[in-house]
């Protein structure tokens, strides 16, 4: 009995073991990354993000960035000036309790005015309500970052400034400055207007079971990692058996 270690520690199988270990390590890291993605999608993660103190929006993302999942639900502060009243839009079919009404969305120009953040100022019963009047001048706001809604909730078409859903692509074509990817649901503004729309709750981020997909991917990466090591072991023992079976002198390298 020459011992399986002699085969295992031969240069060929030692080299392949290093390759298998590197592959397994990379796959383990990829699995952990998928697990992280899953964790960032859970309700607890969303709650934890919402509990953090507000930070300037520009410290989390620029106007060039897509909205990161880690920014959704964060409280952000923004300083700038309200866009012209003509740029304000409404989102239809947004009841407040049992009262029908709309959300009023006003762009807030930031920096040199070439880009803006869309601010959901709140709920109004109709577009002509006093609270719906677009505010003017410089302002600092704090609010919750939410993602653009995935698709139109109703079949209603856009009528003038009244939109069927809180959807960024619809608004991008209506203004002549760049827009940040996402909406800020207003919690407070300084100065605050005399007649303010009723505050609204930020909509919960969609989950669509996507988190389970990431769990499955994480497990798969770990199976691949184990498989790389298993394959090395089986092929090495096969080789060992073949060498042991051959009479000395006829062993081919």
């Amino acid at each position, binding site marked *: 009995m020459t011992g399986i270690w002699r085969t295992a520690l031969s240069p060929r199988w030692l080299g392949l073991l290093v390759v298998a270990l590197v592959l397994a390590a990379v796959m383990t890291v990829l699995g952990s990354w998928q697990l992280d993605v899953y964790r960032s999608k859970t309700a607890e993660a969303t709650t934890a993000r919402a509990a953090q103190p507000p930070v300037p929006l520009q410290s989390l993302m620029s106007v060039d960035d897509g909205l990161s999942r880690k920014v959704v639900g964060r409280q952000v502060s923004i300083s700038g000036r309200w866009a012209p009243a003509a740029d304000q839009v409404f989102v239809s079919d947004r009841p407040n309790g049992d009262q029908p009404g709309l959300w009023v969305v006003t762009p807030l120009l930031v920096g040199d005015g070439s880009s803006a953040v869309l601010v959901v100022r709140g709920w109004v019963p109709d577009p002509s309500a006093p609270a719906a009047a677009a505010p003017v001048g410089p302002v600092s706001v704090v609010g919750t970052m939410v993602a653009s809604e995935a698709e139109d909730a109703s079949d209603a078409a856009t009528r003038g400034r009244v939109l069927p859903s809180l959807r960024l692509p619809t608004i991008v074509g209506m203004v002549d400055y760049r827009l940040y990817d996402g909406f800020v649901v207003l919690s407070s503004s300084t100065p605050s207007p005399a007649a303010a729309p009723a505050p609204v709750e930020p909509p919960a981020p969609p989950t669509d079971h996507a988190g389970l997909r990431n769990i499955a991917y994480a497990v798969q990466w770990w199976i691949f990692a184990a*498989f790389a090591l298993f394959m090395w072991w089986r092929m090495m023992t096969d080789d060992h058996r073949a060498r042991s079976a051959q009479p000395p002198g006829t062993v081919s390298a």
Partner: protein
Amino acid sequence: MSTPHETRPAVTIATPGVAGALTRYRVIAYIVGVMLLLLVFVAMPLKYFADDPSAMNVIGPLHGFLYVVYLLGTFDLGRRARFSLQKMVLVALAGTIPFLSFYAERKLTHELTR
């Protein structure tokens, strides 16, 4: 059948265990090939162009687990049919590229049954 340089014994469908392993490999190769086409040409466009991840949520993980079975099938056949390590890796990777698993399946079947 074997070239003068070949030191490995010739393996054909008649070698014990190879026929069964080949059949198992062919079945899973076909399934994974079809799933990969669904993933790349249906689920991915739906997710990234139409913003609808529901097909991806089902086909993505399903394809992943079936690919694990494909790896097992490849490894099992490879051991029985004495594939070189390089050939084993290439056949395994063929399962990740659209259409290539169908080619690999045909080629292996042809090699072993001629």
